[in-house]
């Protein structure tokens, strides 16, 4: 009797040790990718830029192209993107990231080149560069973060600001009669023949984060086929300048922004061409 009890206790003790040691390398299912550096990010709490950076780093790590990738950072909140991604990066003048990326790709055609731009950078001051880069069909990946406001400069109205949305330069809401309607740049460039793949994703929920990662991965894979430009729009939030908590900002984004900027593929490659 005593012996049996002793054996059971030993077994129980072994089970307890096994339960406590879940945190081992073999049980690890998710970790920050190696391409993302340990530097603490300067973004506000809840900002979508952090998720977007991590997704790019994950894709680069999984494809094993860390040494063959060159990124172009924009002007805006993500101006310090080169501090967080452990790849070769360049900084471009405001709005000219796609033009700089074109030059890099033409000089080094075997490298993977992407530009990471916000809505004030890509859709306002860099509209001309963006549209012509897309029209020429350069073999690039453009990642476009759309949060409907100028974040870094303090919440001014951007071309993508929704009608009726308040910002520091539209304090009574965006009036479409005087300020125009929001610019749907992704729909605009999806019509261009040089664009091979064009999609709109978001980073507000785990399901959307997974979809966004797949879209970025497709962008890098299509770049190798040399068929044209891949354009991935990521609808993001700006809790600080929308004057909301991160949870409220995500809720507002689902209610208001997704009806104006519907998620999904706008242009997918024809299967017969593959």
């Amino acid at each position: 009797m005593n012996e049996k009890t002793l054996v059971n206790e030993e077994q129980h003790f072994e089970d307890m040790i096994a339960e406590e040691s879940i945190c081992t390398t073999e049980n690890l299912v998710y970790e920050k990718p190696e391409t993302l550096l340990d530097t603490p990010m300067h973004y506000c709490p809840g900002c979508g830029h952090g998720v977007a950076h991590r997704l790019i780093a994950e894709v680069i790590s999984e494809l094993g192209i860390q040494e063959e990738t060159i990124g172009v950072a924009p002007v805006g909140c993500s101006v310090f993107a080169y501090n967080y991604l452990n790849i070769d990066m360049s900084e471009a003048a405001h709005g000219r990231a796609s033009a700089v990326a074109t030059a890099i790709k033409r000089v080094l055609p075997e490298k993977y080149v992407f530009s990471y731009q916000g809505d004030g950078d890509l859709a306002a001051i860099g509209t001309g560069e963006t549209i012509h880069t897309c029209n020429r069909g350069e073999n690039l990946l453009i990642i476009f973060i759309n949060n409907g406001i100028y974040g870094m400069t303090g919440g001014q109205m951007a071309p993508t600001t929704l009608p009726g949305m308040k910002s520091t330069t539209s304090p009574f809401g965006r009036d479409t009669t005087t300020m125009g309607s929001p610019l749907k740049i992704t729909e605009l460039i999806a019509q261009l023949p040089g664009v091979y793949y064009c999609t709109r994703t978001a980073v507000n929920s785990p399901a959307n984060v997974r979809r966004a990662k797949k879209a970025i991965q497709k962008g890098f894979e299509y770049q190798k086929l040399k068929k044209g430009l891949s354009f991935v729009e990521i609808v993001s939030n700006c809790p600080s300048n929308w004057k909301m908590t991160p949870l409220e900002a995500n809720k507002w984004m689902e209610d208001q922004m997704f009806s104006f900027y519907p998620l999904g593929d706008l242009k997918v490659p024809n299967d017969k061409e593959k």
Partner: protein
Amino acid sequence: MAKVKGDIVIDIEKCKGCELCIAACPQDSLELSRKLNTKGYQYMVRIEDNCTGCTNCALVCPEGIIKVYRQTTKKKEPVATISNLTGDITVTVNS
């Protein structure tokens, strides 16, 4: 259905307390701490022991500071192997 056991490790010094992982957790096992970290933010703590290792919190975390572990089912090592199935059956006992 057997319950999957998981665990998370949060780097609390980098946490900014945005609460996005609280909303994403299907088990409601996360909460804001009462203490502050050195940056002055409240950080996330796991209060319930019901984590399943679904990685939802890590996917929505803007800082990428959550490591997720999930207990893998132990593979039972074969006691004996049967070889040469077409002809004579030989049984080898693993010691």
